[in-house]
């Protein structure tokens, strides 16, 4: 019996994906690089510096949406009625497919985008130093700002992965809409929970009860809640993606 989880096969599948989508990836990364350079340079016009938090703020603006777009691009074959025969009949198991896709869209993408962004950022700082006499500083990924952006992407990426697998048409729009509805449901859920547990303490007797309650919900968001939602949007979505892939027919 052949192995159903083979690392060489995952490597071959990643290579296949990167070769087929090379054009999309290169174009996306080049567009991001140009925009990142412009945003970083313009940022230095006013305060003559590009602080780490400013740089990683701009980084997040491009890194997350581009990652989402790549996710949909990488799953195009999966839902395309003309190409999914060849794709689904390729001898690679579902866990291998999922592992390859996830690794490409998170680890490889993050490494490549981060390296590119740091280089572009450094170039922008150099240009800013020459043109606007901005302060020179070195950008580094060993900072909390960077890892916060990465953390957000790693948590939300599986949701878009499920969206890319589930929907066949208008995939991005439908995923964002579903996510919006889901956020509303969770907001309501939190509000109800807060009301149930805190009603007896008279927190709803004030004038601005709605906003107070929502503020309190935000403040009250415990560590357990973070883990709960982190799990829902992270690993559990990967499990959902696995079952969606198993059930997929042409």
């Amino acid at each position, binding site marked *: *019996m052949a192995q159903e989880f083979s690392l060489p096969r995952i490597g*071959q599948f990643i290579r*296949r994906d990167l*070769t087929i989508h090379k054009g999309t990836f290169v174009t996306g990364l080049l567009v991001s690089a140009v925009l990142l350079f412009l945003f970083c340079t313009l940022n230095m016009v006013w305060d003559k510096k590009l602080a780490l938090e400013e740089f990683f703020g701009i980084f997040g603006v491009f890194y997350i949406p581009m990652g989402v777009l790549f996710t949909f691009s990488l799953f195009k074959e999966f839902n395309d009625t003309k*190409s999914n025969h*060849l794709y689904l*009949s390729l*001898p690679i*198991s579902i866990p291998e497919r999922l592992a390859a896709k996830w690794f490409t869209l998170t680890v490889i993408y993050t490494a490549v985008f981060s390296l590119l962004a740091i280089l572009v950022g450094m170039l922008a700082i150099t240009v800013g130093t020459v043109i606007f006499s901005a302060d020179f500083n070195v950008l580094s990924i060993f900072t909390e700002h960077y890892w916060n952006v990465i953390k957000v992407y790693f948590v939300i990426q599986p949701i878009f992965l499920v969206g890319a697998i589930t929907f066949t048409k208008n995939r991005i729009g439908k995923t964002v809409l579903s996510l919006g509805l889901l956020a509303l449901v969770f907001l309501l859920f939190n509000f109800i929970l807060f009301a149930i547990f805190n009603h007896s303490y008279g927190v709803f007797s004030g004038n601005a009860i709605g906003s107070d309650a929502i503020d309190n919900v935000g403040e009250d968001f415990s560590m357990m809640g973070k883990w709960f939602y982190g799990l829902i949007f992270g690993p559990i979505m990967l499990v959902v993606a696995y079952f969606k892939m198993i059930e997929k027919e042409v």
Partner: protein
Amino acid sequence: MLTVRQLSFNYPNSRPVLKSIDLDFETGNIYGLFGKNGEGKSTLMKIMTGLLFPKSGTSTLHGDNVKKRNAESLQHVFFVPEDFELPSLSIATFEKVQSPFYPKFSKEKFYELIEEFKLYPTNIISKLSFGQKKKVLMAFGLSTNTKVLLLDEPTNGLDIPSKSQFRKVMASAVDEGKCIVISTHQVRDLHSLINHVVILDNASVIFDQPLETVSEGLWFGKASNPDESSILYSESSFGGKTILARNDMEETEVDLELLFNGVLSQPNKINAILKDFHHGPRV
């Protein structure tokens, strides 16, 4: 080797496309899967590749349910669909990224076939015509050396010279270790290529016989003064060709188109005649 048992399928909110299908596909054979349009030929092929899931029944390859889409099972099956799109890569790059998944892939065979089909490794697939893309995929499929090769309407989109080229390539491709299933509604295209006929009608298998049995049991041609009762099927058009029970008559070449029409019109009569020659009747 590839076994289909009590397989039924229907698309959502529509009539059954396949009902209680039982079939066995063995190595060393080229099967012709015939049927009118919409009779479930493509659906059956997709189920046999694990691309569609049956509503009931099973399709197994060496005992493994193909529905599971195990990597090992898929290494033994290659499916060339009727309508498909290939990645926008050169033929050589396509081979490089796709072939590592098939352990028995023969690079030499692939490039020989590409040359035979008058294509070049540097050709960008997206710029080729549909017929040429089909040739690329067929060349790839044959080079994978999978035990089962399924071809859905392979001659659609091919010009006349390419159809004979296809027959030539397919005839040379079959060996004892391979099972090829070709589905088509253009029966003539498979003339002198197949050695087993399966005909689907009304969502069921109405005919499943080796060509050898057919030629042993049936006589095809223009009969002079035949006994009315011995005529199994006759066509008034095309020069009045008939199918007769062969008995002591000389062996004739099987006319696939006549056989197909005859089976659709008189399945019971024809199957009853062949029953005596068949080694294990199922229909």
